[in-house]
């Protein structure tokens, strides 16, 4: 990745932060300025979903081609996804404190994200429990594919089938009509785009780091 990309990310995220805290937003009853969290919380959740998806895709590729590079990519994506899930949980929890009065309420949305963290926590435990690289990669790939099956359920389906306090229809309503104010929508979409750029940079660094680690381990074993 070249320096133009990196400084582009710097400028984009800086603009997102300025837009988040400075640009006036319309009055939303019950939320007011607390609605600004949407510029950060939703993109973090989106990145978590995207990285778990990439982890699953690379796991499938590993099982097809048996190339350790795919396992490195899958593991790196899962690690970055886990980090972003924690960040989404923290931002959501801070918002809950000021809107619901408590950091943690075991709301369906909070419970589902907690279970998702446990599922991917088990993925890392599984990886660390096996010494053989090939066996670790094979088992972890199968696990990552099965784990991803639960992601859409816990992120999109469960919070909608159970009654939840979590705001819904903030961007689009059930009929697919955009409900968000145009100014907010443009900052929100720009934030999604900027965080996606940041994610690919972090993922790139993580993958290269793991590749170097593998090369050094293989050299030491020879």
């Amino acid at each position, binding site marked *: 990745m070249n320096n133009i990309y*990196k400084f582009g*990310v710097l400028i984009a*995220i800086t603009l997102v*932060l300025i837009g988040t*805290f*400075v640009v006036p937003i319309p009055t939303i009853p019950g939320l007011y300025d607390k609605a600004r969290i949407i510029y950060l919380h939703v993109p973090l959740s989106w990145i978590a979903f995207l990285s778990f998806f990439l982890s699953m895709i690379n796991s499938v590729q590993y099982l097809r081609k048996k190339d350790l590079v795919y396992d490195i990519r899958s593991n790196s994506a899962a690690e970055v996804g886990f980090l972003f899930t924690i960040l989404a949980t923290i931002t959501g929890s801070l918002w809950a404190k000021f809107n619901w009065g408590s950091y943690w309420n075991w709301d369906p949305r909070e419970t589902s994200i907690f279970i998702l963290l446990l599922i991917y926590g088990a993925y890392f435990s599984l990886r660390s429990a096996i010494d053989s690289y090939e066996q670790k990669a094979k088992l972890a790939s199968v696990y990552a594919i099965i784990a991803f099956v639960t992601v859409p359920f816990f992120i999109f389906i469960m919070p909608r089938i159970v009654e939840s306090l979590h705001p819904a229809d903030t961007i689009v309503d059930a009929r697919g009509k955009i409900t968000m104010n145009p100014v907010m929508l443009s900052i929100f979409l720009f934030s999604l785009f900027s965080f996606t750029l940041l994610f690919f*940079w*972090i993922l790139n660094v993580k993958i290269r*780091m793991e590749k*170097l680690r593998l090369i050094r381990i293989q050299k030491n074993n020879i």
Partner: protein
Amino acid sequence: MYDFLEQNAMYIVLLIALIIWAGLFIYLFKIDRTLKKLEGEEK
């Protein structure tokens, strides 16, 4: 002092967020540069 913090709360939060982001960016940039050097040594 308290009045100042209360009236400018958004700007103070923005400043803190920008400082954290700058730190994160410098950290990531440094790791990237170190990695590039190490990759060069491996080749």
